[in-house]
Each structure stands twice: as structure tokens, then as C-alpha cells.
């Protein structure tokens, strides 16, 4: 509650072109937005461009932001739209797996404990961008299905189905000799 009040105050100051408020907003959220963008496009420069455009759009649209809603969800909605523009611009399919991204990756690797995260990160690339996005928003950003639905504009039931399928695929990619129960 206190955090929400602080964010609302920051937003008010940012609307009034307060540079330090904008800096604080950037410092609070740029890591999360950038990580999300980076996992989506897996290219540092492109992820930085997406993060940059998302924040510029966010600050310019701040006067229209409804403060009764979650700022971060709104920011992620903007980032999602910018990422979609990126996919469109680069003629990449959002809903289907793009071979170009994973062709040089050997994704089913050894099970060394220390490399588990890298394996998951690599396995994420095997998923279609939409599924990758749902997995990141649900597991990494800990959004509810309803919030994810607001961000990506897909019905909750579709999100659930896709996420369940994505999880199973990830498990199969990460673990050696996957066995179905």
C-alpha cells in the first residue's frame, strides 16, 4: 500500500517533468523490463532498444495512466506492444517457433547443477515467443493469469493452455530422457 502511494507520487512528479522522479522510475523498473525484453529477443542491443522505446512511450503516456491500476502491469503492456512491433519489423513469427533463433543451440545438454539456469535460458529460446513471454510473466515476474491477460491481450483460458504446454516442453528440453507419467 505504502509502495503504491510512493509510486503514485513518483508518477505525479514525473508527469510534472521532474527529472529525479523519472530517474527513480527508471532505476526501479529498467532491470525487469530489460530482462523481459532480452529473454524475448535474445539480443542485447535489440533488448536495449525495446527497453528504451518502452520507457519513452511510458513517460509520454504517463498523464493518461490510471493510477488506480498497477503501474508495472501497464509498463509491461507497453513493453509487450513494443516487442510485438519488433517482431513485426523483423518479420518474425510471434506465435510460432523461429528456427533462426535456436538453430545453433544444442539445447538438450548435460545436467550439471551449476548450468541449470543457462539450460533453462537456452530452452526458453526453443519456445515460440508468445509461450516464452507467458512463462516469463508468470514464473519470473509472478503475474496472475488475469494480469497477464491484460498485458498480452489474450484470454485467460488460452494463456493457461499455452503455459501448461510450454512448461511440459521446457521440462522435456531441460531434463535428460524425459519420461511421461
Amino acid at each position, binding site marked *: 500500500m505504502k509502495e503504491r502511494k510512493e509510486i503514485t507520487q513518483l508518477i505525479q512528479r514525473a508527469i510534472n517533468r521532474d527529472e529525479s522522479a*523519472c530517474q527513480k522510475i527508471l532505476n526501479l523498473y529498467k532491470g525487469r523490463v530489460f530482462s523481459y525484453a*532480452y529473454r524475448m529477443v535474445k539480443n542485447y542491443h535489440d533488448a*536495449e532498444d525495446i*527497453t528504451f522505446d518502452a520507457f519513452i512511450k511510458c513517460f509520454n503516456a504517463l498523464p493518461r495512466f490510471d493510477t488506480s491500476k498497477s503501474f508495472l502491469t501497464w509498463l509491461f503492456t507497453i513493453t509487450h506492444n513494443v516487442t510485438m512491433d519488433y517482431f513485426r519489423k523483423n518479420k518474425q513469427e510471434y506465435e510460432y517457433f523461429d528456427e533462426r533463433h535456436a538453430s545453433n543451440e544444442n539445447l538438450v545438454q548435460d545436467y550439471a547443477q551449476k548450468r541449470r539456469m543457462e539450460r533453462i535460458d537456452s530452452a526458453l529460446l526453443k519456445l515460440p515467443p508468445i509461450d516464452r513471454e507467458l512463462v516469463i510473466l508468470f*514464473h519470473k515476474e509472478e503475474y496472475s493469469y488475469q494480469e497477464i491477460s491484460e498485458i498480452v491481450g489474450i484470454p485467460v483460458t488460452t494463456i*493457461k493452455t499455452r503455459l501448461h504446454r510450454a512448461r511440459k516442453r521446457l521440462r522435456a528440453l531441460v*531434463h535428460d530422457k524425459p519420461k511421461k507419467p
Partner: protein
Amino acid sequence: MKHKEIERLIQKRLDREISHTEQRKLDKHLAQCPDCRRFCQQMMQTGKVLGELTQSYPKSDFNARVIARLGLKRRFAWTKAGIAFAGSWIAALLFFAYSPLQQQVFSRIATSIPTIMRLFDKTELVISSLTQVLSPAVKNSLSTLNPVVGLVFSILFIYFLGKALQKEVKCKA
């Protein structure tokens, strides 16, 4: 219980939507079925690792680029502190030079506390020299006590300003 049903329960658990009854059902089955147990462990581990993925950051000049694009003038913390210090110092000097309060009031307060008196004796020479250097125009109208009070006010002001800036830096970190 069918494996398909178990998979559904595992997905519900990962969705944070599983009920106590369903959890008990799941636990009971997992205790008997090694295949489902392995599947469940792998699914849970995958979910856990996803939540622990590291956070990356853009380059260090990212903020400056955004601020520049927005057309906001960047002001550094030390500039603000410098302006505040100079402003408060001048304000304090002018206030005490033309203060309607009588000097006796300050003297009475200072002499009533021996520590302040001792401090005053030690710093008097330094302060009067400093006053002559810093404000030659008003040196004749100032008693040596007034700049001391001005200095104390300035220090207090800087202290609280420092606290405020520190809070900002913490937030940035």
C-alpha cells in the same frame, strides 16, 4: 488415479491454484508412483529455476539517454547541494546581520551552557576571520556570534539535505 489426472494436478500446483484436497490426492499418488514423482520433481524444479533467472540491465548510460530524449535537463546531486549550501549560507548571514532579535538573547543562551561558551571561545577567531573574508561588505555590522549561529544553521541544513540526498541514492542503488 490416471497419470493424466496427476499431470493436471501438478499443473494446478504450479499455477498456485491447487486445493488442500487435491494436494493430498497428489501427494498420495506421488508416494506410490516413481514415474509421476520424477515428472513432478522435474516440473517443480523447472518452475523454480524460472523464478530464479537472473536479472540483466541495459548499459550504464541508459538513464541519461532516456532523460535526454525526454528533453529533461539533468542536474547532478552535488550541484543541488552546492546551490543549497550557498543559498543557505547567504540567507543565514543576511538574516543574522539584520535580525530584529537582540544579540543579548543569543549571548544569554550561549553563556547559560558552558560547552557552547567554550566552543564559542575556540571558534571565535576562526569565524571572525572567515566572516571578514566571506562577507567584507557586512563585516562591520556583524558581531562574531551571529556568523556562528549562521554556521550552525547551515550545518543543520546541509545535514538534513545530505540525509535527503542519501535516501535518493539508496533508491537508485
